[in-house]
């Protein structure tokens, strides 16, 4: 079983649209949406929920007004500006429990925090594990870890070849959580200065955690000079540019219809996505054989 995570650094480069097509192309796999903060993959895979699990993470403090003598010690020690007028703001509270530990009147309690929920669903393309992080919750990567763990169990139980993960944007906690132990990171970038800047940073994270990298240039014809620069950069770093997908509004049309691009049409966009999947599976198979 091999795991491939699709990342980008910059948001909006086309990760989810491309992954939905992988769902249609790969035969034996489980899909995972690790972008738990703003999960969109389900919009293209039409899942039917089989299991729903609550995700509890961290705590929130609560001050009992009747016991509180307003001594202010809790406000003094709180480093997150979460206590004002002797009331805890649950959005700012980071659940450190410092206030609970110091209150001389034992007026503070902490409650387990329902942080979100995760789902195991069936789709036309196979199993999908996805989640919804609660609004304004801490995106610490734990929910990402939970969905990946479930995907591994499903892959093991059903003897599936691949785990294909839709990664989050950025380079912080949730990205690191989606990367650990993965066999390959595919970076979907775009030929814009912002995209290139962000690609460099996310590749830096992959190198930091020694995860092999492959690049796909999406909307490659938007700026040919920048596309060439990306290719040179990758060449210097020994990174394969596995595919260059031209810009085409058909991707949005397919999205509106709720279909992966490779099922909606058969044009150069579909062909480049197929080429990308072929490169990914070829690399992962060769890794398996090397073992």
């Amino acid at each position, binding site marked *: 079983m091999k795991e491939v995570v699709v990342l980008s650094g910059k948001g909006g480069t086309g990760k989810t649209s491309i992954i939905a097509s992988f769902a249609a192309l790969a035969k034996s796999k489980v899909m995972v949406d690790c972008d738990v*903060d*703003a999960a*969109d993959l389900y919009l293209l895979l039409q899942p039917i929920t089989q299991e729903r699990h609550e995700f509890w993470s961290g705590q929130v403090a609560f001050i009992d007004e009747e016991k509180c003598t307003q001594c202010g010690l809790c406000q003094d020690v709180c480093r997150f500006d979460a206590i004002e007028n002797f009331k805890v703001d649950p959005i700012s509270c980071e659940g*450190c429990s*410092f206030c609970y530990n*110091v209150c001389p009147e034992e007026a503070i309690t902490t409650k387990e925090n329902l942080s979100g929920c995760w789902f195991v669903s069936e789709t036309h393309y196979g199993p999908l594990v996805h989640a919804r992080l609660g609004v*304004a919750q801490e995106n610490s990567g734990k929910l990402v870890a939970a969905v990946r763990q479930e995907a591994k169990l499903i892959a093991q139980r059903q003897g599936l070849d691949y785990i294909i993960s839709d990664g989050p*944007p950025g380079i912080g906690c949730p990205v690191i959580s989606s990367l650990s132990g993965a066999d390959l990171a595919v970076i979907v970038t775009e030929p*814009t200065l*912002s995209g290139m800047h962000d690609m460099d940073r996310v590749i830096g994270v992959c190198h930091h955690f020694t995860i092999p990298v492959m690049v796909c240039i999406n909307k490659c014809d938007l700026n040919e000079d920048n596309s060439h620069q990306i290719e040179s950069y990758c060449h210097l770093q020994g990174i394969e540019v596995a595919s260059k997908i031209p810009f085409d509004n058909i991707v949005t049309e397919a999205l509106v219809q709720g279909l992966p691009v490779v099922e909606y049409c058969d044009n150069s966009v579909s062909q480049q996505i197929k080429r990308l999947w072929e490169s990914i599976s070829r690399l992962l198979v060769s890794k398996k054989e090397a073992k």
Partner: protein
Amino acid sequence: MIISIASGKGGTGKTLVATSLALSLQNERPVQFLDCDVEEPNAHIFLKPLLSHKQAVSVPVPHIDEKKCTYCGKCAEVCAYNAIAVIKKKVLIFPELCHGCGACSYLCPEGAISEISKEIGILEMGQSAGIEFVHGRLTIGEAMVPPIIREVKRHINQERLAIIDVSPGTSCPVVEAVKDSDFCLLVTEPTPFGLNDLVLTIDMLHRLGIPCGVVINRDGVGNSNVEEYCYKESIPILLRIPLDIEIAKLYSRGIALVEGLPQWMGAFLRLYNDIELLASGYTLQS
């Protein structure tokens, strides 16, 4: 006034809108731009500030004085993040899990825990013509984002209009960035992804009590569901930017919209006037 620019979905055009808003206003009033997308800050590409000042951003992490430590385990017991483990005569610290709350140090019965600084990123400050500029940048491999955002926002200049560029999503880094804004401008795209994430972001802003309005970028693609949702929920649509290959090409070259196509400046000035009215509690005439 503090205006934050968020989106939910990544890649909708937050930085495009935020930088053009700042550039359009710089001759009208003093402006400050704060890029709080500290994982992937991009605004500097468009504003090209002359950076004059750099400072490290650190978080406090515990340091154990083993001479004083009695391995009582109190620190591990109080740590809500499992960042400290006490096993027999050994204390293990996991700084990447530490939130810097200070509880372990305060509560150690032996006074054996001090706090040392762990650098997690940098702040850079400078000037882009009339615009005061601040951005934060997370060090690659580090995980903790909110402390850097908090540090960027500590530099808000009350004498200026502050425009805050926010990262995608709706979780803690976004909340940290938009918190205490007078208004939040949401940049979306008229697609199912755009709508899905817009709904989540509006929910977040309602919980924070921050008034908001929408900019529809790439107007003309997709479908009309975003528009219908905004009308139904009485969320004002303040600006539409069409899908335009010229705008996309300028963006790809790191050229701000109002610099490449100055005819857009008027639209951004009107956008600001609408935001001012809405932030003051007025409703707009449709």
